Every structure is written in C-alpha cells, then in structure tokens.
C-alpha cells in the first residue's frame, strides 16, 4: 500500500470542531442503535461486539483527529483520507467475508436439520404402517437411531 504519486499537495486534514462534534454524535447514535437492536432481540450479543468496536473507533477518531495523521504516516500514505478509506474498506471486506463464512456454516446446518426432519417423517410413515401410535412422537423418537 504505497502512497499515490499524484497525491494532493496539502495532505493534512483539518477537522473543524463542528465536524468533530457531528462525528462524535453519529458514533454515539450508532452505538445506541446497536444497543437498541440487542434490547429488541434483533441482534445477538456475539455479533454486536464488532459494531461496538466500530462505534468506539469513530468516537476515538472524532476525539483525536491527530491520530489519523499518525496512522497515515506509519502507512506511508501522504493523504490521510486515503489511509482512512483503505483501512475502513479492508475492515468491511473482512467483515463481509466473515459473514459469508457464517452464512455458509448456517446453510449447512439448515440442510442437515431439513434432512433429519425428512428422515423423521419417513420413520413416522413406517411406524404408522405398523402401529398407530401417532399420538406421542417423543416416544417414537427415542432409541431409534444408533449414535454415529
């Protein structure tokens, strides 16, 4: 990640106190939204950690704008905007991939669950053919399957 040759001549960002306040308010509102989603059972805690970290990052960025310049210097990027966008972009890319992995795992789990249910139904059909104990499926289910 080398700095662009034709970068802007004035690399430093000069955040006004107004933009810093807006950024801080947005960060707080974002974290409040995350909290509210958890409270209403729309978001599980284990998936919320990363979003809290993101909100905190926004807050830190608003509080210490000099930090971004330091990071850009460490990355060797002259334009702090480029540094900011590339960091955020990479983080989001990683997060999206992480979600695809989680989705794939859940898709596999759903498939297996559907298969198990289909086999249960098939068993019910055979049991109904022999004896009519449709009443209590829990009894039928016990001890039918040898452990794998």
């Amino acid at each position, binding site marked *: 990640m080398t700095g662009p040759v034709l970068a802007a001549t004035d690399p430093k960002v000069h955040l006004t106190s107004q933009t810093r306040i807006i950024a801080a308010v947005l960060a707080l509102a974002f974290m409040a939204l995350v909290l509210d989603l958890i409270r209403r059972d729309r978001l599980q805690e284990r998936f919320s950690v990363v979003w809290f970290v993101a909100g905190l990052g926004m807050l830190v960025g608003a509080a210490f704008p000099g930090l971004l310049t330091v990071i850009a210097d460490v990355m060797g990027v002259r334009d702090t905007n480029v540094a900011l966008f590339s960091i955020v972009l990479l983080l989001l890319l990683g997060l999206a991939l992480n979600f695809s992995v989680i989705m794939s795992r859940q898709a*596999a789990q759903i498939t297996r669950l559907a*298969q198990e*249910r289909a086999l249960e139904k*098939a068993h019910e059909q055979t049991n109904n053919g022999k004896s009519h104990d449709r009443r209590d499926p829990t009894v039928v289910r016990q001890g039918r399957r040898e452990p794998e």
Partner: protein
Amino acid sequence: MRTLVFIPAWNEEGPIAEVIAGVRESLPEADLLVIDDGSTDATAERAREAGALVAPLPFNQGLGAALQTGYLYALREGYDACAHLDADGQHPPAEVARLLEEIHADRADLVIGSRYRDPGKAESDDYKPTLSRRIGTGVFRFFLTLATRQRFTDTTSGMRAANRTVMALFSERYSPDFAEIESLQLAVREGLRVEEVPVRMLERAGGTSFLTPLRSAFFIFKGLIVLVVGQMRPRHVEAER
C-alpha cells in the same frame, strides 16, 4: 443383502408413480424411498399412494442435499447397497438393477450409469443431447478425467449405485451445489473403486431441462471452481471398509 433404491423428486407428480411402479417391478426385493425436495405439487402424495416411503424435506434444498438424505437413510438403516435414479422417468429401473449387480458382486464401491458408453459408440441411439449440454458434458468429461486420471463419460449422471463405504463418505461430505461431479472426484480421491456402466436412458417423460445457454455457461464455470477446489481439499480415509 438389503438394498435401498431412492428417488430424489422435486415437483414430479406426473411421472413419479410410474417410476415407482417400474422400480418395484425391476427390483422387487429392494426397499424404496422417495426424497421429496420441498415440492409444491402433489409429488409426496402421489409417491405415498404408489406405496413408497417418503422423506419430505421441508423446503427445496437442491439435488445434492436430497441425494445426501438418501445416503444418510441407507447408512443409518443398515442397508448393504443403495442406488438412486431420477424421478422424471429418464432412467429405466431395469438398468438400475444392472448397476446394483456390480455392487452386489463387490466389483466396485460406486457405479455410475453412463448414457454414452455404448460399446463402440460415442453416443447412444436413444439419447440426443442439445448443443449446450454436449459442450458442458465435454468440458466436464475432460476436466474430471484430468483431475481423477480415470476416464468418465457421463459425469452428471443421476443414476448410481453404491455400497456402505460410499454411503458413509457421502452422508458426511456431499456438496449441495455441485453434487454429481464433486462426488465422483471425492470418491476417486478417497481411493474408492468407481466404475461406469453403459446404460440405456430415455427422453424425459415430464418437465423440461433447466439448462439454457447462459445457465450452462454459469454451470460450467461453477463446476470448474468446484473441481479446482476439490483437488486441494484434504483427503481423509474412511475407517469403515
């Protein structure tokens, strides 16, 4: 020797009863399981009326998941051999019996019914594929042969027979996306004996093929990814042998 014949079916209320009757006639000793892959029509009812056991998936999961359900059932219920065929009437049950003979005689672990391997002929008289299918078949044939170093002609055939080793493998690992080809690659990689037997196949009795040129291209592309990734997968040797 207990044998299970299973039929994955998705919206095949038309031909399913006839296919079941055909299997009963050709393979009277075999048990029969229809895996209803979330059909929205009366496939499950027709199959039950025809006397088959039905395992209904609660929603459409794709052919791979449906076939895996069959392998899972065969494994858990202790069948010695299993076979599957398509529900649309393309596969004559008498030919399935020939595949099962190979399993019963322990000449192979997995047997594929190939519509192409007529002795001395590249293509059979009964079966006239469309151009896009012919291209796809050629591509897969080439790459699967390259990957497995074994000659396959009908890589996407849905008429197969298998023994318990294969049941154990496929109920554990069976790609829901690209079952037909990846399963062959997997079986060969695991050191199993995979054999092709030339069979007679019929024109589709009902329904239309899902392959349009664009879909075919996508299908082929996806298949190549699957094959490349499949070559890089770790091997694991099955204990049950």
